[in-house]
């Protein structure tokens, strides 16, 4: 790992100290987050210098060039009154192929991005770094049996995108600021909701892996490969049970009802995936409902919960619910899109996975318009030899990918509009950037 800072005499560290972020920690953490944002390695001159406010320039030394640019931008970060990261979410990494293929997919519109470049992960670093630790603690306290603990914590190693806790905590802080202004801190109950949402999500992943016989997830061998199906299923149940205990401990009836609804939605979404509908129109509606249940429901309901815990009224709770819902739908749409465009290395799991599982996702459903021969393939769930390849080709030939991107963009824009209803704050800006990230991510 490259050392990004020159510690000590750097003016940054003093300012960072003021902002109470340990620079040593920041080092590794930012590095990791940069990977996740796909911003790694190249820091071009254009990246952030023009957006800084009241920067302090450090003396340039050739071998320190990399560090200097970075510390310059960090100086900007620290010096600005609003703490802001500097990673322009839309500058592309130089990973061949995928970068180029995405160049047509950008949704840059003047004025659609905030003035300050916010990195939500950077912003919430302190909150997020502990989420996985707390989750593992809660699971550890739930059992004395080591092998159960091992399976249960397999996916909680910090390699996930942590989108759900990130969005939940962003919303929590944004809402707290909206209602209470500077007097806002993060409630521990809100942090718990972030943990619970990640646990529910992971439990569903664990169960999905049993069904899908998947070999890879998040770049590591899936749980099945290492243990047996029955134990894995039980580990998933264990995580859910511990999450239920945590939900009950919140002692809030509304939140309990909302979060329990999520689990039901997840299962019903899975069931919907098993069945299939006859007509094209029905199919799309079916797909959207299934997508809501499987993905958006969790995000929407967890942001709604943190809002309720802040003491917000119904109207505000609804704003955050709709934000979460739109964000979740966009997230899944982009996920379905990425299944057709990205390569194995970037994603952590192989592509055309949905087709191979017999699932007709948005790009395929859109492509049906131009290529009706996809219809029988959908009905037989791509079981015939050659179906998967043919469908893959047809999707690329059609406008399916663009249309999916467009739909995702619509949802993101709606999410941004809703976020703009909240009082301005770095966290509120973070919500907007998160919507943008969801749209433009690569893995």
């Amino acid at each position, binding site marked *: 790992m490259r050392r990004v800072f020159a510690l000590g005499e750097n003016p940054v560290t003093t300012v960072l100290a003021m902002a109470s972020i340990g620079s040593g920690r920041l080092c590794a953490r930012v590095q990791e987050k940069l990977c996740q944002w796909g911003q790694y390695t190249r820091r071009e001159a254009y990246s952030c210098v023009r957006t800084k406010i009241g920067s302090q320039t450090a003396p340039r030394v050739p071998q320190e060039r990399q560090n200097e640019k970075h510390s310059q931008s960090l100086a900007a970060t620290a010096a600005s009154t609003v703490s802001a990261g500097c990673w322009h979410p839309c500058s592309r990494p130089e990973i061949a192929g995928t970068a180029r293929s995405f160049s047509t997919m950008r949704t840059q519109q003047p004025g659609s991005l905030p003035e300050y470049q916010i990195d939500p992960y950077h912003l919430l670093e302190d909150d997020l770094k502990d989420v996985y630790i707390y989750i593992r603690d809660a699971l550890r*306290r*739930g*059992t*004395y*049996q080591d*092998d*159960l603990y091992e399976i249960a914590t397999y996916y909680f190693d910090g390699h996930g995108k942590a989108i759900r806790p990130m969005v939940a905590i962003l919303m929590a802080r944004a809402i707290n600021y909206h209602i209470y202004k500077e007097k806002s801190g993060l409630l521990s109950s809100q942090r718990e909701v972030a943990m619970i949402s990640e646990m529910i999500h992971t439990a569903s992943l664990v*169960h999905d892996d*049993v*069904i899908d*016989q998947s070999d890879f997830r998040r770049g590591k061998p899936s749980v099945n490969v290492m243990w*047996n*199906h*029955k*134990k894995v*299923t*039980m*580990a998933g*149940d*264990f995580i*859910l*049970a*511990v999450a*239920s*205990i945590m*939900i*009950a*401990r919140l*002692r809030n*009836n509304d939140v*309990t*009802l909302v*979060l*329990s*609804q999520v*689990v*039901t939605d*997840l*299962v*019903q979404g*899975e*069931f919907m995936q*098993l*069945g299939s509908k006859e007509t094209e129109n029905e199919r799309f509606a079916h797909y959207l409902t299934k997508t809501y249940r499987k993905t958006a429901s969790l995000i929407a309901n967890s942001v709604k919960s943190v809002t309720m815990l802040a003491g917000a009224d119904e109207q505000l709770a609804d704003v955050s619910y709709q934000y979460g819902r739109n964000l979740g739908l966009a997230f899944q749409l982009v996920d379905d899109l990425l299944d057709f465009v990205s390569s194995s290395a970037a994603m952590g799991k192989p592509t055309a996975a949905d087709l191979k599982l017999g699932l007709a996702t948005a790009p395929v459903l859109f492509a049906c318009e131009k290529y009706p021969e996809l219809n029988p393939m959908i009905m037989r769930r791509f079981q015939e030899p050659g179906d998967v390849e043919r469908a893959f080709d047809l999707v690329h030939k059609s406008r399916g990918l663009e249309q999916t991107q467009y739909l995702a963009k619509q949802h993101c824009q709606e999410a941004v509009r809703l976020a703009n209803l909240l009082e301005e704050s770095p966290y509120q800006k973070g919500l907007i950037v998160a919507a943008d990230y969801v749209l433009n991510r690569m893995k």
Partner: protein
Amino acid sequence: MKSLCKLFAACSKQTFRTSTLYTNTKIRMYKMDRRLEFSSVIKEAEKVVGYPVSFLNLRVILNDEIANILSYTKKLIEMKHPLVQTLSNLVFQNEQKTFGLIVLLMSKVAGLSGNFRESEYDRGTDILHSQRVIAEVIEMIKTGHLMHTSLSNIDASTKNVLDINFGNKLALLYGDYLLAISSSELARLKNHQVQQIISSALRDLAESQFFGLRDPQNNPIPSKPLPEQKDVKIPNEFGVEPLKFEDVLGNMKAEWTLRNILCSGSLLAKCCQGSLILADHEFFVPKLAYIFGRNLALAWQASLEKVQIKEETFSLVSAPVMLHLQHDPSLYTEIEKGLSDQKKVNYDLIRKVVMSGPGLDKTDQLKKEFSDTALNVLNNFSDSGSKTVLINIIKAL
């Protein structure tokens, strides 16, 4: 529904070799006398609480979404997927423990403490609607858990991988569906303490599948008996803490007890406890219900296993076997073979050895120990019709 019943009738005629899962029993005719006596006791009990609780299990089959998918059942039967056995048992209710019924009876025995509005309970039976929900929840959790244990582990040597995988998928989804519904029902009760306690019972159920040695299909195998058998007590856990198991593995009686507490005792105990909390009882009364539920479940399991040992295959961790091992560990060499493959075990030999040894008598003693504790708890409550029914159930075990 009709075609479904026909399918199950067909599969009940064949005798499957059961896997040695705990809660699955073989479909065979038990001794007529005992069956009649027990089922008449249950019928009486059902009259007391107002309706046949046994049909709660059928909810899983009658739901629309699931009925759709049951068209795949025929294929599963051909493959002899464990899920089919489970579903058959549910439909034909052979000696299945009706926990929901016990919860309702216990609720009735304790009665209502505190003031409740007329809309909250049933005038005829004095049972709160929320208590009935607990009875439904316990059945759903039990069935859901059963579904999840009905998967079939797939490895390199498995044939028909896709079909077995599909069976696994169904079992997993049914189970998830039931568990999800039970959590939302629990949430609707709006009682945090009860929700916490029952979620911890769910956690115990999940833990039960990891406890002790397992074969490749995750069936339980006894641990090697320790040379010196200690009498380890498993404490009552009225809260949400997990149960410890140091000193338990290897002490045959304690191992059996803890295993069955995790598998069924904890669920019945905590649901009884929860039900009485809903009725606003004082602090110690729900605890009595916990003790009652736990001991009843253990006694019940012991009595079922005593009968099961006479079958072709039986659970290797059943009470007669475990208690025999306590007395004579040499049998373990035969049992150990089950660690790599169930089929290597000579069940006939084990049955012969156990039945000629003290295993059965000791099981009776064990059962009596738990039944007596349960009966003692009942003595704390005033006499009533439902109390008599519970006493009869315990005596009929």
